[in-house]
């Protein structure tokens, strides 16, 4: 299998899940072009249930594009995405049904939060539960309050997002995604738009999620967080996966010259 890197095979047996188990998420030969420019070249990746993956790499290397291909927000031009039995082949006019099924099981958190500014915090979290899960407004609000409480923001329920700090807004965005009970969470640089202290509140919530066994893929520049919280680190550059493996191994002992350079540049910053 081409997606298994040399590093992870050489690593000691601390990997959580056996490789023989069927992958939970599997990306095969993904390509993505914008017009004539191909920005993802043949990316394959597998992930097990409950695994936490960090994607790192220089900006412009296609990390966001990869996340957006996974949930088909920006459909790949070639290749396939499978998650737990549902497969979306690029190019095939895959049934809307499958797309919706896949989408519904994946939550996503953006760098810029993207909360709905004209709705209260509670409405932000409840809306999709009512519209897509068929919950009553009462049940949805109850669930939303539980989630807001979990991210420490139950007291902000009636405010509008603009009255909340950036860190609070990002935690609300996480609660909004969790409200739909996703099986996989995608995070695209969730703390890059935040002051460091505010970023910490968000990272704490993410760490708790990871500890609870949520399957997560996060694009991040927080190297320490990537190393300590994720099970596996994937390094991307110029639209390809350069290296992947157990976080500590990749961070401490990278094999690829380009990765060595990147990690040095990040540490010196």
């Amino acid at each position, binding site marked *: 299998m081409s997606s298994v890197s040399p590093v992870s095979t050489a690593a000691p047996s601390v990997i959580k899940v056996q490789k023989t188990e069927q992958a939970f998420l599997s990306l095969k030969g993904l390509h993505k072009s914008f017009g004539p420019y191909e920005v993802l070249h043949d990316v394959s990746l597998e992930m097990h249930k409950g695994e936490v993956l960090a994607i790192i790499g220089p900006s412009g290397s296609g990390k966001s594009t990869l996340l957006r291909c996974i949930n088909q927000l920006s459909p790949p031009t070639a290749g396939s995405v499978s998650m737990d039995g549902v497969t979306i082949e690029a190019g095939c006019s895959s049934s809307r049904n499958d797309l*919706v099924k896949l989408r519904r099981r994946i939550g996503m958190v953006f760098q810029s939060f*993207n909360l*709905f*500014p004209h*709705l209260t915090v509670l409405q932000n979290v409840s809306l*999709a539960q009512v*519209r897509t899960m068929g919950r009553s407004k009462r049940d949805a609000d109850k669930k939303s309050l539980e989630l807001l409480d979990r991210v420490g923001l139950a007291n902000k329920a009636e405010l509008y997002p603009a009255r909340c700090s950036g860190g609070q807004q990002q935690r609300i965005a996480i609660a909004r*995604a969790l409200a*739909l009970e996703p099986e996989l969470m995608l995070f695209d640089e969730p703390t890059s738009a935040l002051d460091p202290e505010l970023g910490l509140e968000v990272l704490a919530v993410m760490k708790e999620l990871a500890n609870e066994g949520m399957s997560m893929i996060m694009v991040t520049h927080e190297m320490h967080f990537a190393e300590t919280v994720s099970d596996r680190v994937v390094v991307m550059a110029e639209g390809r996966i350069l290296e992947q493996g157990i976080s500590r191994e990749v961070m401490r002992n990278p094999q690829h010259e380009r990765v060595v350079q990147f990690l040095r540049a990040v540490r010196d910053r």
Partner: protein
Amino acid sequence: MNELLGLWWEWFPDLLQGFFLSLQVTGVCLLLGIPLGLVFALGVSAPNKAVRLIFLFVVELGRGAPALILLQYFYYGLPSAGITFSSFTAAALALAYCTGAYTSEIIRGGLEAVASGQREAADVIGLNKLDALRFIIVPQALRIAIPSLLGFSIIMFQASSLCFTIALPELVSRASAIGSNTFQYMPVLALAGIMYAVVCIPATIIVTSLEKKLGASSQT
């Protein structure tokens, strides 16, 4: 001077009735026209090309034809096709079409100004296209468009004076009727002008300050 005030005092009740009719016809035309503008705006940005072209044609027709022509067409033109309206209905419909055509551009600007991240967020929480429009995009677009829509409404109130050409007894009709009976055109038209100004000047000031307020809050 006293003489002028005496004349105004005499004419005022009559003009006031016309003034209320002007407000009424404007109100109905906006109530019908702005939702129509939303429909036109969505139609013009529809994914289906045929739908888009049809809406584009309807909108361009409404923007291209002078309001005066539309009024005349609805009142004098349609009866020859067997459709007859009272002057009030004809006025409301013709001006509503005109409003729809013009406000569709304003609303389309609002739709395009909604941040693209909002559509993506609606998408990833699984809202379908219609729900995304209804709960996320349109409310924000209308909010962005409010100052321009109010500005347009003031213009429409003034444009309602064109209804005197289809015998609707609104403010200008009544003023010109008084003028032709008394030959006192100057004073009666001056009074009518003041009555328009009493509404339009404060409204314009309010719209401008609202515009500044909304502009400032959207930047934070």
